[in-house]
Each structure stands twice: as C-alpha cells, then as structure tokens.
C-alpha cells in the first residue's frame, strides 16, 4: 500500500507538471484541445492525491509499523479517531494534507468554471497547478510520508524493518479539537490560493474589469470563514489543553494564522471599493498577493523551526524550500505588476473624506498595521539576534501593548464604516445614524465604570461594543421599517426579508456582531484571577464566588495512558454547581504527559481548574484554579461570525414586486418576481 500511495503521488506530480506546461502552451497557442487537456490534468491531480491519502490512512488503520511516519505518529493502542487524525500530526502528513485540501479547491474551481471565461481560466489553471506542483515536489521528493524503515545488514544488503509498535500521537494532539482545528486552518490557508490565482491571472492576462473580484468573492469568503474557525479552534485548543489559563499567548504559530486572516479581512473590505467604484485596484491585487504569501509564510514558520514555538510539532530542514517558493511568488507577482500596472488604473474619484470609501481606507490601514505589528513582533527575536547577536524575547505583554489600541480602533471603525454612505455622507445623516448609538455607548460606559470596569481598555471596549451593536441594530431596524411600511409584516419578518434581499450586506453586519462579541470576551481578560494550592481530600479553596472542595485523588488506567485525576466539587453559595475532573495523563508509548483541564463555563465567567501535578514535598495534588470572565463570549462570537459568513454566501432573494391590479408592468428588472395584488396586502406603487 505504501508503494501504491507513493506511485499515486508521483503521478499527481506528473499531472500537475503537465497542467503547468500544457497550460502555458495552451495560452500561447490558444489550442482548445490543449486547454481542455491541461484542465483535465489539473482535475486528475485531485483524484490521485485522494488515492495517496487513502493509502496513508490505510497504513495507519492497519498498524503498518514498517512505515516511518506511522511509527512516529501512531500506536496499537491509539483510538481509531486519532489514527485518522494522525495524518496531519507530523510534517510529511500535514504537507500531504495541505496538497489534498488544495486539490479539492482546485478541482472545484476547474469544474465550476469549465468552458467559462476562456480568456481567464487557462491562466488560473496554470497558477493553481504551479502551486500544487510545489507541494507535490515536497510530498514526493523532500518529505514523503511513505518512507520505509530499513537498515543496512551484513554484506551491504538493505533490510526493511517492521517495528513492534509506534510512538503514538503527541499527547498535546490527543484532543478532539485537534481533529477539526488543522483541517479548518488548512482549508483557510489553501483557500486563499484561489483569489490569489484569479488576481494574478487577471493581472497577467489583463482580464478586463472587476470580473475576477466577482468570481472570487465567494471563494475568498469561504477561505476567510475557515481561517476564522481555524484560529478560534486553535485558541480553544490552547485554552483547554495547554492549561496555562489563557487562549492566546501570541505564540509564533498562532500569529502565523492570524496574519493572513488580518490581510484577508482587509481584502474582503477593500474589494467592495473596486466593485462599486472601480478604485483601489493596485491595492487589492497586492493585498491578495500578500495574503497568499503570508499563508505560505505561516507554514514556513510552523515547519522550518526558525522560531521556537510550543505549536511547532513538525519541524525539519524544509524551511529553505518554503523561502525559495516565497521568493519565487514575490518575483512573479512583482514582474506581473510592473509589466501590467497600467491595467490597474482607478476609474473614479473620491468625492468626500466622510464617505464609505475613506472608512475602507482607514479600515485597511488599521488591519495592515495590526499585521505589521504581529509580523514584526514575531520576527523581531530572529532579526535582533541576527543584527546585534543578542537574544531577546517578544512575549505576550509586547503584543498586548501594541495590539489592544489597534483592536479598539478597528472596533470603532466597525461601527462607523457601515453607516457612512458611498461618495458623501451629509451632516444630517451622521447625526441621524450615530446619535443614538453614541449615546448608548456612553450610557454603557457610565454603568460599567462604577461597577468596577475601571481598566481603560476594557471600559473603552465596553463603550465601543455597545456603540457598534446599536449601529448594527439601527441598520436592521431602519431597513426593516421600510419593508414593513410596504408589506405590512411585523418588524422581525421584515428584518428577515431585508436580510435575504441583501445577504452580503446584512450577513456582513452579523459577522461584525460576532467580532464585537469576541472583543467583549477579550475585554474580560482584564479581570482574570487565579489561585494555586495543594489540596488533600476534604480541603477547599475559594476563588471569586466559587468554593472548590477536593473530593478524591486517584489513578485511572486507560488503554494508551494512565490518568491521575482529581475530583473537585465546585460550589457557588451553598449550591453545588458542578463536579470537575482535572487530570494529567501519562502516555506509555511516547513517555509524555498531557493535561486535561476541567472547565465550568457560563456566560459570566469560566471556572478553569488545572491539576498541576503532585507537590514534591507532600505528594498532595496541586490545583491551579482560574476565574476567567466572559471567555464564553469569544466562542459565541466565533459561532456568530461563521453564521454571518454563511448568510453572506447565500444568494440574494429577488425582491417581490407587487403590482396594483389596474397597472401593467412597464419594465421589470431581471430576477424580480411579479405577484398578483390580491395575494398581498400592500402594493409598491
């Protein structure tokens, strides 16, 4: 099966290479047969990679310990669930997994647009195949997951060895979320290849207009949504597994996933300028290039070992390949830009500083500055050591210091931007749109301050959050009111109708609402408390409104690990709210330990309990308890962001135009439905 997998991957590489070479010839000769043949080769890559991945999974499920990758990441006792997830737990497998997801995207794009956009798609096909080719080079020749274990015996003969058992999955990865988190993140990273390919193809092929933006809007949103889920699941995994009481430590690998998210968010906003006003064409093209390069850079950080990280599970000497690829991408993008930059001239002019256009400019500026701050902080230890020869650390306090004000500015713009009109916003409109939300924000601040929200950033966050939520509500309310006046339906039904008529706009507002909830959750961090103490059976600890009573401390053998578990009763007032079971697991096959945190989560706060180990003096369990306010709002916000994105992906429902019985339609816009007046209560005229 390992040979079969290797062969499938090799064939996939050949097909990708053909898709590149054949595609270039197809573009030059405009031969329709070649175009079709290159496209089919691009689609065949997907089928072949699926076969390769299926082979590797088969090796995992059959405990084939003659393959090095299986030995390193699986064991007899590992559950089927984690054997499946072991595919992406190491270097070779993750790179193969990257190729797999990318091939799904490529197949979907080539299939969806087969026979369409003949001037653009051959270029897109070549670029996508070139990216696939790079990863298939790694899969086949640099980091093959099908390497066998062998040793040279007497007489120089190579013998294949089958190990009796494998080392098993790293304990940190033996957590259900780790089965979902990498696929989500990889779907985000790879998904940005699609807008990149379309952007570059449009530039190289001088494809007229904003068509490439329209074509890639949904793909970009899908990638962005996956990236958002991936980032949040990663944060949740860190929260529930690493056991240090927080969810974001500004670790280089966390930062690597955040950077393309920031530029991707900027891109999603600035493309609207190009769609509506034909502006920011140069900027959009570079934004999509940078987003893609940051995706590759993120993988480089994870894989190269250039920066130490608790997340860098799979390090190797693969870095130079990624740096080479990054350099090549940059050169190609720059050359295409320099050659065709006249194609990117803006059509329109800016009518007023107080307009949607300016808000997008500032939104992009803030997102880009955030990205620069994260990138410079992540890379600075390397840069500083390289220049001064001195090792320095850039930890969470630095990132918080820089990024909290940036985040708050972004939050402010989230409220202001959508309420500004395109071209020009009048003073009257400003007053009408912002008056109540601003007042609401200030009232919220006035309530929050006396009850203890005295931290300047948390207070500002509370004010801005209420302001933004009110602006979103007022937007829905105003639109729904108009529809209600026409249809006579109640305000809620009108709001639903409004949303379905323009899913992109109102889905976007829902996404903004989710982001606000995430900010509210982050603001709670200013009020975190923690306490650590030895707890023998019967002893208690008080933290915030909770009393923790240690009930028992026992050792529980399991199939592939032994757990030391503490049973803790969590009481609030005189009422028991939950039994908590924090534990430490010792994995026999890998000789490593893992932490299982126990969390009692409410909307108000999380009671987060960690069994930190035994005290060396008394041999009693040591419990570290944290009280983390509002953390649940972050996960809730993530769910709202995803729902908003899904909503924005749904096609608009055409408006129902109701005609009076006496009147005949003069001209109806395409896609409108005509409904007899008798069916409805009101008419539009």
């Amino acid at each position, binding site marked *: 099966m390992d040979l079969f997998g290797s062969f499938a991957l090799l064939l996939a590489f050949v097909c990708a290479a053909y898709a590149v070479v054949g595609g270039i010839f197809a573009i030059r000769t405009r031969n329709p047969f070649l175009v079709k043949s290159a496209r089919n080769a691009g689609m065949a890559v997907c089928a072949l990679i699926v076969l390769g991945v299926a082979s590797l999974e088969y090796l995992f499920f059959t405990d084939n310990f003659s393959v090095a990758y299986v030995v390193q990441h699986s064991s007899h006792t590992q559950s089927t669930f984690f054997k499946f997830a072991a595919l992406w737990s190491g270097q070779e497998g993750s790179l193969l997994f990257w190729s797999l997801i990318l091939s799904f995207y490529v197949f979907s794009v080539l299939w969806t647009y087969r026979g369409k956009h003949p001037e653009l798609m051959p270029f897109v096909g070549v670029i996508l195949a070139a990216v696939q080719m790079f990863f298939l080079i790694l899969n086949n020749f640099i980091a093959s997951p099908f390497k066998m274990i062998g040793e040279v015996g007497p007489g120089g003969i190579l013998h294949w060895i089958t190990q009796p058992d494998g080392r098993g999955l790293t304990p940190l990865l033996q957590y259900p979320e780790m089965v979902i988190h990498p696929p989500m993140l990889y779907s985000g990273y790879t998904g940005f290849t699609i807008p990149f390919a379309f952007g570059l193809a449009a530039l190289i092929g001088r494809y007229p207009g904003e068509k490439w933006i329209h074509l890639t809007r949904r793909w970009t949103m899908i990638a962005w949504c996956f990236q958002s889920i991936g980032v949040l699941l990663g944060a949740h995994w860190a929260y529930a597994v690493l056991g*240090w009481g927080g969810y974001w430590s500004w670790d280089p690998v966390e930062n690597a996933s955040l950077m393309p998210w920031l530029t991707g968010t900027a891109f999603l906003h600035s493309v609207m300028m190009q769609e*509506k006003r034909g502006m920011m064409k140069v900027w959009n093209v570079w934004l999509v290039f940078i987003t893609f390069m940051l995706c590759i850079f993120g993988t480089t950080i994870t894989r190269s070992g250039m920066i130490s990280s608790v997340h860098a599970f799979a390090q190797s000497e693969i870095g130079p390949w990624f740096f080479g690829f990054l350099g090549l991408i940059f050169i190609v993008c720059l050359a295409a830009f320099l050659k065709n930059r006249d194609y990117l001239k803006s059509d329109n002019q800016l009518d007023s500083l107080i307009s949607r256009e300016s808000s997008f400019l*500032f939104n992009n500026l803030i997102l880009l*500055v955030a990205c620069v701050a994260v990138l410079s902080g992540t890379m600075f230890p390397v840069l500083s050591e390289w220049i001064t020869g001195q090792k320095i650390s850039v930890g*969470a306090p630095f990132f918080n210091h820089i990024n909290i004000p940036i985040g708050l500015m972004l939050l402010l713009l989230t409220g202001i931007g959508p309420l500004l009109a395109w071209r020009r916003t009048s003073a009257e409109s400003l007053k009408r749109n912002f008056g109540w939300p601003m007042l609401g924000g200030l009232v919220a601040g006035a309530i929050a301050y006396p009850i203890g929200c005295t931290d300047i950033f948390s207070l500002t966050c509370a004010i801005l959050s209420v302001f933004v939520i009110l602006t979103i509500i007022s937007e829905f309310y105003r639109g729904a009111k108009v529809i209600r006046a026409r249809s006579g339906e109640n305000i809620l039904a009108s709001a639903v109708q409004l949303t379905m008529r323009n899913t992109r706009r109102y889905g976007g507002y829902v996404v903004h609402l989710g982001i606000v909830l995430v900010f509210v959750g982050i603001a709670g961090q200013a009020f975190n408390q923690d306490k650590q103490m030895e707890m023998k059976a019967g002893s208690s600890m008080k933290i915030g409104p909770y009393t923790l009573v240690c009930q028992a401390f026992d050792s529980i053998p399991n199939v592939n690990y032994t757990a030391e578990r503490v049973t803790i009763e969590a009481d609030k007032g005189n009422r028991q709210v939950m039994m908590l079971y924090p534990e430490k697991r010792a994995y026999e096959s890998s000789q490593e330990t893992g932490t299982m945190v126990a969390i009692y989560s409410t909307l108000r706060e999380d009671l987060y309990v960690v069994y930190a180990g035994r005290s060396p003096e008394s041999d009693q369990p040591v419990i570290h308890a944290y009280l983390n306010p509002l953390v649940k709002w972050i996960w809730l916000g993530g769910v709202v962001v995803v729902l908003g994105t899904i909503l924005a992906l749904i096609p608009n429902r055409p408006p129902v135009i109701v005609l009076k019985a006496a009147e005949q339609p003069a001209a109806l816009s395409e896609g409108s439905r005509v409904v007899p007046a008798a069916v409805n209560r009101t008419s539009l005229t």
Partner: protein
Amino acid sequence: MTFRSKPVARVVAVYAAIFLLAGASLLIPVAHAQQTDHAKKLGLNLMCMCGCAQVLVQCNHLNCPSSAPMLKELDERIATGESDELVIQDFIKGYGVAVLSSPPSTGFNRVAWLLPSGAFVLGLGVIALVISHWRKRPIHATAGPHDSQVNISADALARAREKVDRETEE
C-alpha cells in the same frame, strides 16, 4: 392617538435596546478590591527561561526547573523592599536580556516598538497621498441642463444605469 404612540413606542424601543445592551456590560464582574500581587505584576515583565516561551507568571509547569526558582527569587527580592527597576536589572544580569518579556526600548531593539507606529504613520501618509490624488482627478464632463437635446445612445444609457445600480446597491 396613532400619531402620538408611534414616536413614543420608538423611543421606548430604543431605550429598551440601549439598556438591554448596557446590561451586557453588567456581566463584566466587579473589579475586586484585592489588587494584583506585586510579584505577579512584576513577573509579567519577565519570561520563564525553561524554553516554554511563556511569561514567568504564566508558566504552568509544576516544579519547572526555571520558573519555580525565578518566582521564588522574585518574591524574596520584592519582600526585601528592592525597587522594581533594580530587581529587573538583576534578572537581566543573571539571565541576559532575553529574560524580559518585551524588547527593551534601547538601541536596535527600539525598532520593535517603532515599527508598528511607523507603519501607522507611513500608512496615514500614503492614504493622504492617495486621497489627494483621487480628489485631483478630473471629473468627466457631464451634460448640463442646457444640453437636454444631447443624444445619448441606448448602450451608453444602459451602461450608466448599470453603474448607478452598482454604486447605489450595497
């Protein structure tokens, strides 16, 4: 009656929404009188040197060969009443500048602090340039009221309508 009740209902609804949302802020717990421990605060400026890349007070490894003695030392130094600056300087002497959780704002390391604000200022400059360029761009000549007899082709009209639709729909 209808004339009066609508604005009242609207005002009540808006107030209800404000207070409902302001209520969310009530979920932020009262800041407890118990202040953050001095050592914890100071420990935020230091990194654990075991290689976990975590801030000293956040290192969660029990019996960590690095954080446990460092925290002990920190507590002892604070207990003797030494100034924060002196404690930090001694830690730097003992462990090197890498013990600081943020780059010191001296020498080349100052760049780490200046880069984000520099990027912001540079970005503002670029935006100012872009805006001035956009505003200077000539406006295409349009037909005035006295040009009402100008013939516009159906194709041009359709294009103009499409543009208006695109720019006015959200």
